[in-house]
């Protein structure tokens, strides 16, 4: 269970998030949605202990992310940010191998190698495994980073816009894989996502943020509602049921 209580973040007096409190239950996929600048990524990076909150506490699976050792946390919690700048030139396989760092401290065991290869094939990267990252397209690189996070094999997986740079086909494939990871292995996946329809199709719960506050949260059925979405995005949104799926229509 991920719990955050009174979490806020401000820069030079400007509050960008909170204070917000909430609970993300174990299992399933939770999507964090909201307009630009709502504080989605800020909340996710605070939960993933990459950013220190101005106030508040976050616990993931009972571990306080600010006081627990980074190394211990890395066995329970993995996080991928949107932009990943890198100094060295790595191949895909070397990058994915870094996902095993919390478990092996850099010395890959045979079991680690198995997990690395598993993650590579899981994201359909086998043909690209020995290519350098700077030789890949944005979408391929994005999949390589997600493979690294999966190789880390943690109970909690936080992803900041994993569909960034992905085309429709690979977005769908990525979401299916995450769905499988959640369903079959009981992983708790939290992701920031822009496309409300992707959130509706593949996640279990949706948390909506706006102006640094949690506006509302609930199951997909509760959230896919004209009034709720119109309020969250400050834009007229209609929800239609197409083939039984709630689909938001807003570009009208």
């Amino acid at each position: 269970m991920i719990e955050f209580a009174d979490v806020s973040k401000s820069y030079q007096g400007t509050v960008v998030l909170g204070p917000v409190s909430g609970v993300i239950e174990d299992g399933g996929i939770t999507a964090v949605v909201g307009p630009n600048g709502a504080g989605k990524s800020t909340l996710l990076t605070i939960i993933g202990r990459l950013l220190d909150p101005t106030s508040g506490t976050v616990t993931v699976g009972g571990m306080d992310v600010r006081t627990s050792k980074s190394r211990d946390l890395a066995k329970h919690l993995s996080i991928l940010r949107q932009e990943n700048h890198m100094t060295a030139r790595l191949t895909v396989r070397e990058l994915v191998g870094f996902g095993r760092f919390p478990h092996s401290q850099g010395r890959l065991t045979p079991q680690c190698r198995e997990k690395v290869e598993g993650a590579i094939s899981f994201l359909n990267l086998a043909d690209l495994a020995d290519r350098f990252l700077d030789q890949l397209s944005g979408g391929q690189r994005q999949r390589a980073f997600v493979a690294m996070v999966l190789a880390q094999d943690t109970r909690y997986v936080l992803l900041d816009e994993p569909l960034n740079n992905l085309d429709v086909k690979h977005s769908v494939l990525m979401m299916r894989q995450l769905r499988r990871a959640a369903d079959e292995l009981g992983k708790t996946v939290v992701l920031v996502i822009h496309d409300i329809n992707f959130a509706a199709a593949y996640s279990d719960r949706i948390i909506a943020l706006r102006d640094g506050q949690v506006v509302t949260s609930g199951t997909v059925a509760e959230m896919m509602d004209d009034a709720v979405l119109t309020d969250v995005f400050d834009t007229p949104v209609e929800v239609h049921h197409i083939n039984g799926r709630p689909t938001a229509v807003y570009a009208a």
Partner: protein
Amino acid sequence: MSVLSTPTSAPSATGLPDAEPGLRRRLAARAARLPRLPRLPARVTARLTPAARLWIVGALTAIAIACFLLLFIRGSFDFTFPRRLTMVGAMVIAAFTQGVGTVVFHTVTGNRILTPSIIGFDSMYTLMQTLIVFVFGGTVIASTEGLPKLVAQTALMVLFATLLYRWLFSGRFGSLFLMLLVGVVIGMAFDSLSTFLQRLLSPTEYDLLSVKLFGRLSAVKDDYLPLAFAVCAVIAVVVWLRRMRLDALLLGRDAATAIGVDHKRELTVMLVLVATMIAFSTALVGPMTFYGFIVATLAYQLAGTYKHAYVLPMAFLLGLFTLAAGQFLMQHVFYAAGFLTVIIEFVGGLLFLLLILRKGTL
């Protein structure tokens, strides 16, 4: 059981790859069309493992050192050899501190352009020497040689660096680039102060000072070397034990933290080590702004891997080779032994400009 133990041989279990043979073919075709790396001929790159590369550079370095030590001895062997051996000792220290120090600095700061000198070490050394001459007069600088002076200078530099980092990392700024910027400004301030004081010196005193301000391998006193070697050995062990964590730091702050590396602690430890190394180097052989930069840049190109277990020894060996071969050539071919560091700085400066212009950013 884990999601990742899905066997590679049966990818269809994931429901993914079989659905898109077309993409696979296209990717394979694109991979085949990719141009070869322009650096070394592809055959050579593929055949030489990182270890083999180290052996080759190591052998070349050994040859260069042997040439420097044993060839062109005019007069007594017993007189010349120990003096040259002392110089080789100084070269080892300079190569280690500058090579390893720069690579480690590059890794923890996440860039490959800025060098430790940018945070003001050379400038502080210059200012300290200038101040000594200015306050005590030129004769003092010649008479206060010795271990205490060296230790005091080193301690002062490390203290300066630690204070700077602690101030900048107190959380008020939290930005490495801001810290580097402050380092540049402080370095410039030290330089300006030194220049100002140097204007006030008499020509004789200025002459005495200028001898101190350019790296002089031949002027190293051999009683410094045991201490320098001991310090370098300790640092080498610490860095070697952390080489895997250094590899992880290459991913950048966020990704390194995500896989469990305490970024802030590693950064602080490494910066103190770098400060110690550069301070020792500067105090021992004088300021060399671009030497570490050349050596590190070459090491990245030649090591053939990102792993610090290979890059760090490669930087050290290349540094040693540059100094030994350079000194040998300058001394016996061009008869200009004192100019080696000047030439290294010149070539290094050009390389630095070239890389900055090519990259356009830090």
